[in-house]
């Protein structure tokens, strides 16, 4: 494939896929170790009605109102979970399950009943995103990367996800020690004087920002897969947290690239004529990587013991 073909059609979707995957995988490492991995799943379900309501109010698929809608929906879900837990005397896990499913279902109903046919907003889009359509038509080749005019035509999802990824990396770097200590031994961290409650909320908020930004570009399937699969596979490769995070970035990147390529060309190699959903394939590849790590990872015994 030449640069003239690759840069406009494949470079941006691959980069967006990689950024989304890493932005979710980084907080995913801590969420998995804290046994909170399903928070990523939860966020991606809860935000759907928020995004749809934002669309209905503004009548356009624009990023910031949708982010606000998503944040509002996340807030409402937290209040609902707490209310159900207290009033219904139901344990937190079950209350979460009820709220997430109900809110996602409400989002699906809202989508069906509203006229969203003119825009890319439907159930399939919510699940799979629309990675393949995030192309860069202004580009003519590798040299376009230095051409301000062409760069102005980049799909807005790319700079937005780059910004979110930078935020996630900065958070992980600055709060590395408190995150590590409080994830391992919360009581000890508290006696040191750490505000572990605020840190836990900050971690979930960073995860939510990553999830919402990624959801907008690549759909909820990738979000769920990337929060769990690369960190879980990485844990099977090493007994050191820093190395684990490194492996999770490698696996997230690998999933994004291989998933995109297999989705576009895999069916052709197998004699078919269509391509399949890149988001679905990226999530599948991350699952395969996790399966391989579970079978062959050097640290898999330690996990089972």
């Amino acid at each position, binding site marked *: 494939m030449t640069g003239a073909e690759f840069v406009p059609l494949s470079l941006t979707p691959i980069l967006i896929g990689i950024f989304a995957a890493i932005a979710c995988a980084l907080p995913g490492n801590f969420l998995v170790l804290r046994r909170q991995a399903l928070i990523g799943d939860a966020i991606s379900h809860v935000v759907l009605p928020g995004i749809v309501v934002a669309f209905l109010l503004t009548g356009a698929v624009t990023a910031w109102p949708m982010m606000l809608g998503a944040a509002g929906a996340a807030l409402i879900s937290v209040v609902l979970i707490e209310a159900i837990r207290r009033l219904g005397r139901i344990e937190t896990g079950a209350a979460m399950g009820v709220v997430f499913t109900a809110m996602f279902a409400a989002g699906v109903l809202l989508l069906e009943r509203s006229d969203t046919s003119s825009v890319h907003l439907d159930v399939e889009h919510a699940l799979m995103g629309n990675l393949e359509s995030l192309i860069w038509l202004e580009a003519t080749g590798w040299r376009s990367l230095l051409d301000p005019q062409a760069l102005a035509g980049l799909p807005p999802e790319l700079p937005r996800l780059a910004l979110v990824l930078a935020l996630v990396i900065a958070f992980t770097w600055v709060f590395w020690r408190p995150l590590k200590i409080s994830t391992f*031994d919360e*009581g000890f961290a508290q006696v040191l*004087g750490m505000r572990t409650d605020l840190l836990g909320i900050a971690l979930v908020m960073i995860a939510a920002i990553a999830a919402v930004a990624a959801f907008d570009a690549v759909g909820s399937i990738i979000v769920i897969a990337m929060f769990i699969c690369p960190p879980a596979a990485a844990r099977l490769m090493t007994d050191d947290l820093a190395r684990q995070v490194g492996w999770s970035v490698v696996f997230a990147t690998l999933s994004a690239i291989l998933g995109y390529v297999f989705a576009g060309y895999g069916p052709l190699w197998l004699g078919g004529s269509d391509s399949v959903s890149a988001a679905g394939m990226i999530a599948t590849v991350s699952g395969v990587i996790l399966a391989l790590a579970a079978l062959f990872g050097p640290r898999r015994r330690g996990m089972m013991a």
Partner: protein
Amino acid sequence: MTALNLATQNGLRPEAAEIATSPLAIRGLTVSYGEKPAIFSVDMTIRPGSMTAIIGPNGAGKSTLLKAALGIIRPLSGQTTVFGRPLDTQRARIAYVPQRASVDWDFPTTVLDVVLMGLYRELGLLRLVRSSHRKTATDALRRVGMADFADRQIGQLSGGQQQRVFLARALAQGADLYLLDEPFAGVDAATEKAIIAVLKSLKADGKTVVAVHHDLATVEQYFDHAFLINVRPVAEGTVAEAFTAESLQAAYGGRLATAQIDRLSQAG
């Protein structure tokens, strides 16, 4: 002249003077998990330089007392002072060793790394770990006989070894007050001996040690002070003062045979 005498001379009432000099003084501490209180209106005054065992039957609120005093659990009411000052100003002088079973030992980290966590207040968010920090950590590991295990993943250790690593982390903190939650739970005899030797050396250096303990038989041998609790405080003082037939009966009720009570109160 003792600190207590000094404080009294400075015009403080004896009770206030005791609190001002106590490494850990608790007043009116009440914690409830549901409708029933876990601990109720507990006063406790730890003597400077003492080794105190917090003793009581299962569910008496021993761990809860420690956690609430340290702000890990939010109490319904009550105050804690550490060396006569608010807890928040004295955190650098406290080393806390949680129950071994309270953490996930599968966590991807090494023995040395866990001990380095004890230097967090010094290292802060971003300061680099220098060789002097590593030396502090290895010295602490040497004191508990775990220097050879520095690079091991913590999940590969036995229960006793894990407990020693936790103690080494506390030693690395270089604190003046050591609070341990069940340090002898599920450890081998050699580890128990090693831990008590380290705790006694801390006391010899003038540090204060408080440990939740549930083996009545070893209290007298290991500790010089005892605090008996069964939701409400029962007795406090030297082991001999605290271990009377009445207080043991009050703390343990029917759970101890009369013969046991006789033996313990006489030993005390």
